[in-house]
């Protein structure tokens, strides 16, 4: 079992494993709230919106340190989020269209900036395009540490405000009558989604990042009817899929990490949809089959 040995002692593999596990946990937890608030596509829009932030941060500072690029991504993601929320609250444009507009405009701008950067004769620029599909093999220790720290802060906030976030997701109107500032709380929760996205930039990339948010939560929902358990399972599924996908992409050289992780997530979702103990459809078939057989026995 040399792979386990390498996970601990090989520098690259250890970073990949830790980084993708951190990402899986943070996005698994925050994804639950996004899915339950029917904001599954929000993650997609915001992750695409982060790309121009990465490019601008590099163009302005000339630096590729993880903190600089993450800050740029977060800023762009938050700006995208605020625009989406304002469009939804103040105009008659429906939320889906608002997401579509921001996703395409920001991503378009990001691709243009990326091209501009690559056309410039700047030897240092190489590698910014890995943010499109992610490249876990390029993770360095400082990135993993940064991811863990900001992810940890996001999880602390979720833990502290768990009861408020739960009420917001289930019954925002009732939360409002209790005096909770639902707009502010909703903005904070969506803002934390941006944090999860920023953590996933290196590993999964902006294009497929939303899978990291939506898939673990959807799979976890199939196994439980309790929110706290759903969050726990979602974090586990996210961490496992992230880890397996990232390690596979590193070992089987040359494949971008994002797509491999997405395939692992897809397997988890399909398995859960079929066999999940709370909502899995296989159990429905079994019950129906039993009932039919039962009827046959009584009629014959």
């Amino acid at each position: 079992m040399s792979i386990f040995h390498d996970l601990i002692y090989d520098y690259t593999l250890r970073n990949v494993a830790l980084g993708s596990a951190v990402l899986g946990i943070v996005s698994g937890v925050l994804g639950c709230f996004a899915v339950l608030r029917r904001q599954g596509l929000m993650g997609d829009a915001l992750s695409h919106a982060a790309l121009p932030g990465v490019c601008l941060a590099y163009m302005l500072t000339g630096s590729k340190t993880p903190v600089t690029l993450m800050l740029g991504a977060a800023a762009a993601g938050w700006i995208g989020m605020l625009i989406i929320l304002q469009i939804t609250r103040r105009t008659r444009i429906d939320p889906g269209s608002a997401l579509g507009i921001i996703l395409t405009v920001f991503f378009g701008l990001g691709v243009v900036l990326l091209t501009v950067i690559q056309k410039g004769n700047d030897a240092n620029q190489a590698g910014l395009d890995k943010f499109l599909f992610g490249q876990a093999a390029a993770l360095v220790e400082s990135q993993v540490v940064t991811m863990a720290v900001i992810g940890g802060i996001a999880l602390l906030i979720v833990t502290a405000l768990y009861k408020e976030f739960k009420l917001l997701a289930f019954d925002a109107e009732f939360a409002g009558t209790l005096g909770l500032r639902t707009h502010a709380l909703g903005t904070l929760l969506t803002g934390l989604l941006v944090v999860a996205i920023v953590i996933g930039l290196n590993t999964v990339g902006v294009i497929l990042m939303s899978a990291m948010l939506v898939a673990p939560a959807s799979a976890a929902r199939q196994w439980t009817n309790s929110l706290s358990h759903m969050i726990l399972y979602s974090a586990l599924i996210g961490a496992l899929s992230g880890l397996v996908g990232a390690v596979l992409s590193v070992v089987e050289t040359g494949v971008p990490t994002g797509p491999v992780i997405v395939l692992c997530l897809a397997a988890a979702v399909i398995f859960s949809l079929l066999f999940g103990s709370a909502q899995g459809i296989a159990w429905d078939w079994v019950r129906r089959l039993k009932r039919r057989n039962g009827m046959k026995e009584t009629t014959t």
Partner: protein
Amino acid sequence: MPAVYVRDLTVAYEEKPVLWDLDLDIPTASLTAIVGPNGAGKSTLIKTILGLVPAAAGTIRIFGEPYGRNRKAVGYVPQRGSVDWDFPTDALDVVMMGLYGKLGWIRRPSRRERDVALNCLEQVGMSDFAKRQISQLSGGQQQRVFLARALAQDARLYFMDEPFAGVDATTEIAIVGILKTLRDAGKTVVVVHHDLETVPDYFDRVALLNVKLIATGPIAEAFSRDNLQKTYGGKVAFLDR
């Protein structure tokens, strides 16, 4: 001092008035039905009083104070259809949400809150369903859970948005019983109600609403054929009783 005091209230969605220049007093320890045709602004009236919908003009007082300063005196039962019943939670957990306002930020519900919530479930006859996932409850049971959550708020004034919508006959009787118990205990209950026939049996007072307030007062005075004609515009066939 009335439980609810409303003067010159006007509410508009996108320039279109939903409530127009409304004056309304609701006395304490009364059971009031708000009735009126679809689009009359019944839910909007409740939501405006609760600060969920902004008023274009007017004054609202709850026991003499703005709502923001008297939140803990008020309980709310939203329309059952306003939430996703597939949310991963059970009946007991939903009832405990009624205690979040008193708990304040960050603090988690403890054993004490759990016992209060269980007691409220018992009052609505739902003790056996405490641990049931909420999507597996019938419409009537879901409505009772919402009512139990409001009871957990231990308020002096309750607003309920169509608590009888889509419930079975047993639940309807149970809910009416709880409303009357609340009133007899000195609480004020305001209910958006659809079924005109049951108004005189279930309530002491009525507010007839159709964008403007047509009439309000004790059933014997306000719930007249004349006022109903004005509210519904001659479409009330059952009134020949």
